[in-house]
């Protein structure tokens, strides 16, 4: 089956599982609200009654400088309050990925809270082990490969007589790095998909066999992956372009902008579902 058809199937599957979008959006919203709540309260205390409060609508040096001055002694607390929930959220997604992939792989079944979180629990320990492998994968990419890619461009950059070679080389290097990063991401996605579809508990052997699977169908798999990625970029551009024509003043404008922002978050979550659903279909169609 062609990539386009697989992509179409993936879109249908993601749409059928849109209830999951709601669960995931709620979790995202709650976590983000918890993170910004203390800062919101501080800002409300300092600016809520001030005539300067109106300037907070747009980024301004006047209030930004004052915020930095007022809160200069609590950066560690702020960083901690920000980073710890962010890390917890990341770990939570190890749990939630089980539900996402479990439900998209179970074609035709309706999503319920019970079966979603059931899948989260069933696959959690396997996905936790995959996460450990992922960390190693990222270290390889960020550490070794990045250095190798950098070394390849270094002579060109070192001997440059103006900034043009440096600009070209550094952007090429970033592009190459990003492409390799997508390959690593895609590989680990397929490891998770494979674990779910084969219902295997053997993470290492599944990881090895997935290497073979991807290797034999690399171009198709990667093109499909990049296709979804390009869709995400297109949505992002559309979001920013639409933002320019939205009204700016008044309560209605604020609500529209807020809703539009949340639509974008839904789309991002939907893209995540689309990645897994297309990968599931691709795996099912091509597994040995």
């Amino acid at each position, binding site marked *: 089956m062609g990539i386009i058809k697989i992509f179409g199937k993936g879109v249908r599957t993601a749409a059928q599982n849109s209830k999951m979008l709601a669960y995931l959006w709620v979790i995202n919203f709650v976590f983000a609200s918890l993170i910004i709540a203390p800062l919101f309260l501080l800002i409300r205390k300092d600016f809520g009654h001030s005539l300067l409060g109106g300037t907070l609508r747009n980024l301004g040096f006047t209030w930004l400088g004052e915020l930095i001055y007022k809160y200069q002694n609590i950066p560690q607390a702020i960083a901690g309050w920000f980073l710890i929930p962010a890390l917890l959220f990341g770990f939570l997604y190890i749990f939630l990925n089980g539900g996402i992939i479990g439900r998209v792989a179970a074609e035709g079944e309706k999503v319920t809270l019970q079966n979603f979180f059931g899948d989260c629990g069933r696959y959690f320990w396997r996905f936790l082990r995959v996460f450990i492998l992922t960390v190693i994968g990222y270290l390889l990419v960020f550490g070794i490969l990045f250095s190798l890619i950098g070394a390849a461009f270094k002579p060109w950059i070192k001997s440059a007589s103006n900034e043009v070679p440096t*600009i070209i080389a550094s952007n090429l290097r970033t592009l190459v790095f990003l492409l390799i990063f997508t390959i690593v991401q895609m590989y680990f996605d397929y490891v998770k998909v494979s674990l779910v579809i084969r219902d295997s508990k053997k993470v290492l052997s599944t990881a090895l066999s997935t290497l073979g699977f991807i290797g034999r169908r690399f171009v198709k798999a990667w093109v499909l992956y990049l296709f979804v990625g390009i869709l995400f970029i297109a949505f992002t551009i559309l979001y920013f372009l639409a933002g320019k024509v939205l009204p700016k003043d008044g309560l209605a404008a604020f609500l529209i902008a807020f809703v539009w922002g949340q639509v974008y978050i839904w789309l991002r979550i939907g893209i995540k579902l689309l990645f897994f659903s297309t990968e599931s279909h691709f795996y099912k169609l091509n597994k040995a």
Partner: protein
Amino acid sequence: MIMDRPDLKRLKNPGGFLRRAVQVVLCLAVSAVAGVMTFGAQETASQGTGWTSPLRYEIWVELDNARKMLWAREDIVWQNTTQDTVPDMLFHLYWNAFKNEKSTVLQESKQGSNLRGIEVKDGDWGWIDVVSLKLADGRDLLPTKEFVTRDEPAHEGDQTVMRIVFPEPVKPGESVSLKLEFESKVPRTILRSGYYQDSYFIGQWFPKPGVYQEGVGWNCHEYHLSSEFFADFADFKVHITVPEDFVVGSSGKLTSVTKDEANKKATYTYEQSRIHDFAWTASPNFIKVERDFIAAQEVTPQEYEDTARMLGLAVDEVKLSDVKMTLLIQKQHRSQIDRHFKALRTALKYYGLWYGPYPYETVTMVDPPYRTDSGGMEYPTLFTAGTAYFPTKDVLSPEGVIVHEFGHGYWYGLAANNEFEEAWLDEGINTYSTGKVLAKAYGPGAMGFGFNGIPLNWFIPFPKGYDHEQNRAAAINIVEYDPVLTPSWKFYSDASYGLNVYMRAATGLVTLERLLGQETMARVMRTFHTRFRFKHPTSGDFIAVVNDVTGKEMSWFFKELFLDTLNFDYGIASLRSEEKQKHIRGVFDVEGKKEEMTGKKIKELEEKESSEKGGGGPKSGDTGKTYVTSLTLRRFGEARVGKEAPLKVLVVFEDGTEESRVWDGQARWIKMDFEKTAKARYAVVDPETVWLIDSNLANNSYRLKAVRSGVWHLAAKLLFSVQNFLQAVSGLM
């Protein structure tokens, strides 16, 4: 406030002109006598060269591109214009800062809180060696040479200040002629000077005497990490020999070019009088473009009249001269030539109109050679800017740096403060001036951000702002480290130096402008510049000019904001409006008896009064009630306003009326009461934001009813950003 300007009137006064003419004649007479007594040589400099300064340099320098060396000889004539008898001379040898890790610069870069740790790779060092130093009569002074380090903390081993001793001291009015030979290894660009491949920027490169100060001695500091420079005004004639395919830019005016075809070299001779430094650059990669600033085309008669009126001067006194502009630009930036010249013309126009006409014939603007780290720096009649390959429309770059570095031709170049000891006098004043020029000519500019050389401003509309807004944001965050008036090398860190002498000083000056009024401040700046042009002003001189022009004692302003680390913060502590009770509860003496007024009785009275006013209750807007508004102001910071500059306080009421009061701001707090028929809507202290230096403008106002739309907007944006960040994190899991 427009004040009488006796100093400016003297300038227009023929009697004053005559006095100045007499002074010039006397100086010439003294010089002639001193010329006869010149130490060790006949005074030849006045013959045909047009020397005008008591210090003169003639330098021959050859650039050895293969070995990255400079071979040079230098003639110096120094006249003792003081009443002291001077036994020695101290020279700056700045390039020895790049010689080894014992230098003060490299030691300081690794200390304390400095972020700018300078790492020099093997083979990249630079140095300067004086190999011969003789009097004009041939007597050798080199055996007396020693390196001195006089600043605290001491950095033994630094060789950026050299001392030599004269066989006979130089008496008042006498001159001494010196002949030096020196050789320098050009560093692989460390601080503002050096080379990259075949491109060179050569600054602070020749042995330069310090400034002799009467009764004090030689002012000649080591090269410090966080300092710039100080030298005497002089006449320069410099002959620069370079490979023939190199394009050269230099301080001064090009007077001759000599080609040596056989050796494929060319010698460029530049001359300039009355400057205190000389820099040059050479590269085969420059494109040289010359254009003219024609004053008659750049400034309209109306602009001259408006400027003259603002400054209280005659129109002729504000007229500008034509200037030859030279741009040396990197080939890959050729599309930005017009943008560079537009910015330079803007700077020539406004600095000229506001502070005085540019007095030199030429100005050279350099887009510095790649990787020479020499951008954004000033030298008399030459400055370096710097730009990106992809400039953006909304970001004022390179405009900002061009205006700023040209402006240093005024603040530092002409009013030549000691940058070691009082850096704010050029950096702070110039940052203030740059902000005004950019606001006038360009409006607000966006901050520029890029990734791998690609401007993010193409995709993301970053906020725009004026320089004074950005400067204030920095200024309020640095107040508790060092006073603005701190010797450069004694700041807590590089960051404290930069934020204090540039941003905090500039914010202080904007505050002063708002306090005095634009016109008075314009006259202050003009007076300061014209009075100290070609001189070495100090902070005390600036304060004296402020006092002189305003007719007020304004030293308190500088004491609070420049000489100390006092935070300035006045604000509203509380605002309440409560209905004034017509009837008071309690026991009262009525006609000799004690009568109790109870809550119940009061309620009955009020109901009766209400019905007596007519059916339907009070008319719209007429509640019949009186409100007592209590406003408490506090001085949260340690800095105080002067008693002559009380703070304005404004209270606006629900019925649209306003009340203004003043507070002298001396005590820690004050309470004000207002009795009105309406509640307060809001109160503001310093409603016109005169005190821009206030670190907390948010507490300057208080609304009784919170209006939190701005807070919610910001919260929504923060929420969205965090949501996206969390989604990105989830993608990695």
